[in-house]
């Protein structure tokens, strides 16, 4: 088996709009930051995997071809991944495959997004549903997840305050993270008083439309040994897919319930099995999970088996999942809810998790973190990517 690790992570200081760079220049920023953090140059890179989600968000079809020069990828093996919102992490998993195949020792994943420049991201994202049936409801990522939040509240006797607690935690964490987009702490009352986007999701529950870049560098164990590097080791990976149809997420014939994230739980199970994780609450120190809305984080915590179904709100009320609290800390970076440059959001989850197990994150570092998990979600809660990272290759006990 070829072990694969992460030796570099770079990210922009995210904001709503960047007028100082073109899109390729922004991509280059992510690549340069990742390579610099890894202490290598593009010449050391054997292959490049590029994450780019909907072409329509940047307005260029097969936009990956446009940025190849900026990435420095000319002359190298190059692939683009597009798994919707999961893309940034699916690309890292694809890069893992490149290294684990034995063909490559150093693979760069770097990309960028400038969501706010698409005019109306939600109008674009409405078009991802079938033209004949579900597009006309009209669904977008907010209304789709509002339906899930309502279902969660119904099944588990939860309320909007539970969602607000997620936001309060994540904003507190993001205030410690200089790269996060939304860094201003917020109170439960302020979240509840913010305007409703699609009930029960309010502005305070929602992620921003972020602009910026990110990248990670993956290496083989033999490369790490040859160069005396200490990577964050990828110990397990998993992916899974759901049905496309929102109408098939509830009811007698559904495979899961739209309140939950059972397909994501299965992806976590695959990664946990590879990593030897049998008791997630006690074995995992950090979780960087993809949750663009506060309501999503509740069921993702449960899918990661860090709480039982319907019990994550109780944990939050008891101070769990928070820096300084007991048990695994969830989204110490502030997570997707505070920074969401769609194409690379999953890449950031992996990079933050890697830096956590290497003790390199700074003010939002979880003390003595050894094992971290990362996850991402794409499409209409349809594609799930998961990963377990560890500071070493010893057994995870």
């Amino acid at each position, binding site marked *: *088996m*070829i072990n694969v690790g992460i030796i570099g992570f770079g990210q922009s200081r995210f904001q709503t709009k960047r007028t100082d760079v*073109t899109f390729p220049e922004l991509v280059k920023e992510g690549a340069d930051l990742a390579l610099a953090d890894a202490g290598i140059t593009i010449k050391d890179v054997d292959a490049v995997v*590029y994450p*780019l*989600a*909907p*072409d*329509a968000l940047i*307005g*260029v*079809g*097969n936009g*990956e*071809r*446009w*940025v*190849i*020069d900026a990435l420095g*990828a*000319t*002359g*190298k*093996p*190059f*692939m*683009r*991944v*597009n*798994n*919707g919102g999961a893309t940034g992490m*699916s690309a890292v*998993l*694809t890069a*893992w*495959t*490149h290294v*684990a*195949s*034995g*063909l490559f020792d150093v693979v760069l994943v770097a990309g960028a997004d400038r969501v706010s420049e698409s005019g109306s991201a939600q109008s674009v*994202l409405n*078009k*991802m549903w*079938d033209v004949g049936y579900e597009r006309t409801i009209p669904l977008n990522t907010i209304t789709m997840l509002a339906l899930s939040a309502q279902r969660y509240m119904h099944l588990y006797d939860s309320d909007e305050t539970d969602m607000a607690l997620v936001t309060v935690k994540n904003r507190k964490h993001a205030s410690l993270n200089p790269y996060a987009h939304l860094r201003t702490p917020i109170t439960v009352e302020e979240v509840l008083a913010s305007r409703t986007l699609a009930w029960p999701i309010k502005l305070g529950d929602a992620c921003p439309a972020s602009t910026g870049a990110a990248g990670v560098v993956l290496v083989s164990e033999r490369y790490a040994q040859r160069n005396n590097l200490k990577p964050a080791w990828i110990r397990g990976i*998993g*992916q*899974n*897919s*759901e*049905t*496309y*149809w929102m109408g098939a997420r509830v009811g007698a014939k559904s495979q899961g319930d739209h309140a939950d994230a059972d*397909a994501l739980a*299965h992806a976590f199970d695959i990664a946990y099995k590879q990593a030897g994780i049998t008791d997630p609450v006690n074995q995992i120190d950090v979780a960087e999970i993809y949750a663009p809305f506060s309501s999503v984080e509740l069921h993702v915590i449960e899918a990661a088996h860090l709480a039982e179904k319907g019990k994550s709100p109780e944990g939050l009320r008891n101070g769990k999942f928070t820096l300084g609290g007991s048990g695994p800390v969830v989204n110490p970076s502030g997570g997707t809810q505070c920074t969401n440059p769609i194409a690379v959001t999953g890449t950031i989850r992996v990079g933050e998790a890697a830096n956590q197990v290497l003790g390199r994150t700074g003010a939002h570092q979880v003390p003595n973190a050894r094992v971290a998990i990362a996850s991402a979600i*794409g*499409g*209409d809660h*349809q*594609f799930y990517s998961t990963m377990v990272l560890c500071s070493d290759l010893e057994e995870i006990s």
Partner: protein
Amino acid sequence: MSTTHLGIAVIATASVEIHHETSKSLEEMIFETSKRALNSLGLSADDIDAFVLGGNDQIDGRIISIMPSTGPVGGVNHDTTMIASSSEHALIYGYLRIMAGQSKRVLVASWAKPSESVDPDRAELVSAEPYLLRSVGMNETISAALQASRFLNGKVVNTNEKFVAWPLTRKDLPGRGDSVHVVILAQEGSFEVESQFAWICDAGWATSSYELGARDLANFESLKIACNQITQRNLGSSPENWNAVEIGASSEYAVNAVTEFLQLKVGISVNASGCLSDQFTSPFVLGLSRMMRAIEVTKNAKSSKDRYLAAGIGFNGFAGQGAAVMVFSNTKGVHND
């Protein structure tokens, strides 16, 4: 998970190529073709470890093309990844997954159904960056014409055919149509020996500059690097050992130039399955459609006692920005002879 040292084979294929499919949606075409490939082996989707898809959002007219296509290939409740840069990359990624020990059986599906688009040329135009190339109307055909003109070397073009974009006529260009291709790959030991179509010897792929003005369009820089990768790893699978090659280039001019460039041995079969204009395809899947034909040629040589190598070559991006090569054999293993 462990890196495999076992052979990797193509065990099933299915394709549909039609000028204009009016009675089925793209999703129905994907479903039927995937089902046909699975049925040919008596497999179901649950026998597949991973699904690798290759689609293009703009050509498909789907904002995130993987979303509606995952169900039709059988990918629900499975690991599904969309490799969006080209159909050949999707096939290569399926191969890498098995090499990495991540999967034993992978279904790769790629497609294009431009007939569903109101204006496929405009969808291609949107692939041009918005500052320079889009305003000059760049698309696959015009970039193919620019490349073809580079091969003329002062020769006069004598034809009675109407030019689509000088010097290219309809007969010089790939045919356009609706197509879906499905390939099932498997690791040795996870299939019946008699169901093997072709062993995969190696794959090489690379890219070059996006900027048309920054490269010599006659140079095939990305193809050169892709072939070098194979030669360095696997000398016996290098171009001089091929018995057949199927080239999915942007024009017949480019096919001829690639043939010269590769310095193939005398008598090798080049695009024996037909010229570019005969086949209903689309730039996004052109390379994979030729790889499918290389697989077919290899399958036909299955009973031969001699080693038979067939390569498929595809390009992606304007005027062959990227190139991918896959080499198939009727016999297993690396041959560094």
